[in-house]
């Protein structure tokens, strides 16, 4: 049986649709990523799964329970980390963890093995007030608090937003370890590079799930040739390329541009010639392998 089943759910806030006919399943022990820009509906979806919102339409089951009718049973089984800082800033690290253990009728000692790897990193600061921790440490504490009652399903809403690159990497290492313990994890993120670490990802935009597969298979299915272009003046390069009607899409990617054409007959010579005509210097042009971000940009343009 699937750990999470979402069947054609829709949710409206007034006349704005936050979710439109979204359906997917998550297998037990899977690390499932929900990728999409701000306002795509990720938080709404997670709030429905965590019993906090009721969908207008559709069926949801988490571990076989209905978040609407059986919310009380479900609330014992899920660990939830909301997008915003959700700890008590005026409580110390240890007091926060102890509080969340207590309200789930457990103790830090009983489930220490689950959080050991994460908590050890912040334990030296356990007498510090949570509000005085760095962003990365706050997220580690929040994850510890969400895990302390040994949840079967862990739902993390943008856990790495606003966290430095090193802490982000550490955070994902922890998620992979938790996955090995058999915990089903649903995580949302606006960072495309994190998508590659999930077993499966779903791309979501404007409340609609656009594509769902293993990251490698999504990349394989990229339908076009992808080109990479670089020159001395990146911004002028971007503007010039965007004016060229042969190209389907142009977007900045680091310090270079990624581009796709309408047809497959675009080649290096034509590209270089185009750029030379516009007086670009140090022009470099090459074929590139698509990343998950390219796939997402392509889907967004459709």
């Amino acid at each position: 049986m699937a750990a999470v089943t979402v069947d054609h759910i829709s949710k409206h806030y007034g006349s704005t649709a936050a979710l439109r006919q979204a359906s997917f399943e998550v297998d037990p022990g899977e690390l499932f990523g929900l990728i999409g820009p701000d306002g795509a509906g990720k938080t709404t979806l997670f709030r429905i799964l965590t019993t906090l919102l009721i969908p207008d339409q559709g069926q949801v089951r988490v571990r076989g329970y209905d978040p609407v009718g059986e919310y009380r049973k479900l609330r014992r089984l899920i660990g939830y980390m909301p997008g915003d800082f959700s700890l008590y800033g005026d409580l110390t690290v240890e007091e926060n963890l102890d509080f969340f253990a207590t309200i789930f009728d457990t103790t830090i000692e009983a489930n220490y093995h689950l959080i050991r790897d994460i908590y050890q990193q912040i334990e030296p600061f356990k007498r510090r007030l949570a509000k005085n921790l760095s962003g990365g440490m706050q997220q580690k504490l929040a994850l510890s608090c969400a895990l302390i009652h040994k949840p079967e399903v862990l739902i993390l809403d943008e856990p790495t937003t606003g966290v430095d690159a090193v802490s982000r990497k550490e955070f994902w290492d922890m998620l992979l370890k938790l996955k090995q313990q058999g915990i089903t994890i649903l995580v949302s993120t606006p960072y495309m590079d994190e998508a590659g670490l999930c077993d499966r990802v779903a791309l979501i935009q404007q409340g609609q799930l656009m594509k769902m597969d293993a990251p490698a298979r999504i990349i394989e299915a990229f339908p076009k040739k992808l080109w990479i272009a670089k020159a001395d003046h990146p911004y002028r390069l971007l503007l010039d390329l965007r004016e060229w009607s042969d190209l389907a899409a142009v977007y900045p990617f680091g310090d270079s541009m990624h581009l796709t054409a309408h047809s497959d007959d675009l080649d290096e010579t034509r590209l270089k010639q185009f750029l030379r005509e516009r007086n670009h210097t140090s022009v470099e042009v090459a074929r590139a392998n698509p990343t998950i971000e390219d796939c997402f940009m392509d889907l967004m343009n459709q």
Partner: protein
Amino acid sequence: MKRFFGFVRKEFIHIFRDKRTLLILFGMPIAQILIFGYVVTNEIKEARIAIYDKSKDAVTHEITDKLLSSDYFRLAKTIEDEQQIEATFEKGDVKEVIVFESDFDEKLHHEQSAQVQILLDATDANMANLLQSYTSGIINDYSRHIKVSSGNMPAIKPKPRMLFNNELKGVYMFVPGTMALILMLVTAMMTSISITREKEMGTMEVLLVSPLKSVQIIAGKVMPYVALAFLNGVAILALGYLVFDMPVHGNVVLLLGETLLYIIMALSLGIFISTVSPTQQVAMFISMFALMLPTMLLSGFIFPIENMPWPLQWLSTIIPAKYFIILIKHIMIKGTGFVFVWKETLVLLGMTAIFIGLSIKNFKIRLE
């Protein structure tokens, strides 16, 4: 149960780590009671009075001298006929007019008794009461003095008369009134703010996703405030009794019991406010305008309810503090038992039930 106490413990930590909360909880009640107390027991200095001496003999001159030689009074006007009295009061020049009856000396020595009428502007009830007692004190002192020296039994009888507000409502009001106000503010405002703070901080989201029942969340949040507000109530009563000689004629247990009931009523009101306010600011705003002003103005604390126009009188019947003030005055000043205050107790109980019912109906187990 362990869950619940864990929650209460967390709540106490919130309170004791926040200096502003502590200040409101403990600084405000003490400051208020002292301020109100000071205003009420304020000493008189050079109050402007007028004298209408119909007799103008040696005794009346002596009494006048004695009055004016104290620092308390200053002669602002000498009145020569009856009509002037009212005009003088209406102008607001003086707070008190002293009228010596005619043939004062003669009556005092032949009839053993003479009258001094003390007319007071009682629009400021507390001030009028003070002036009256100071004046009477000086006159009685003089009266005893001539009695001792002459061996006779002459008596000067001061006859005070309060004008404009002859029942002197307002005296002894400040302890019950301040108590009603402070307990209402501390409990209703603080609980509504502390609950909405969880909503605003996003921690309510995590609490909701936990197995805690909504009753546990609410009870856990208000429990510390019951204890602290009760402590406040006792402190106010003690201050009133020890510093300002507020009498406690009635049963202390009944008094504390009614105080606890009022606190619980205010808490349920606070919970209700929190269920309808999305942010701390809204909660604060509602508490200030819906609780503080009516409690001060419409409860009978500052203005007597009997003198209000009927729409305000009608409105005052839904102000909980009104009933608490009546209760406390009955128990403290008149020393009456439960038999005489059961109606007010019942009203407070009813209000508590209504607010708790509304809160349960309004409390959201989800985010919307």
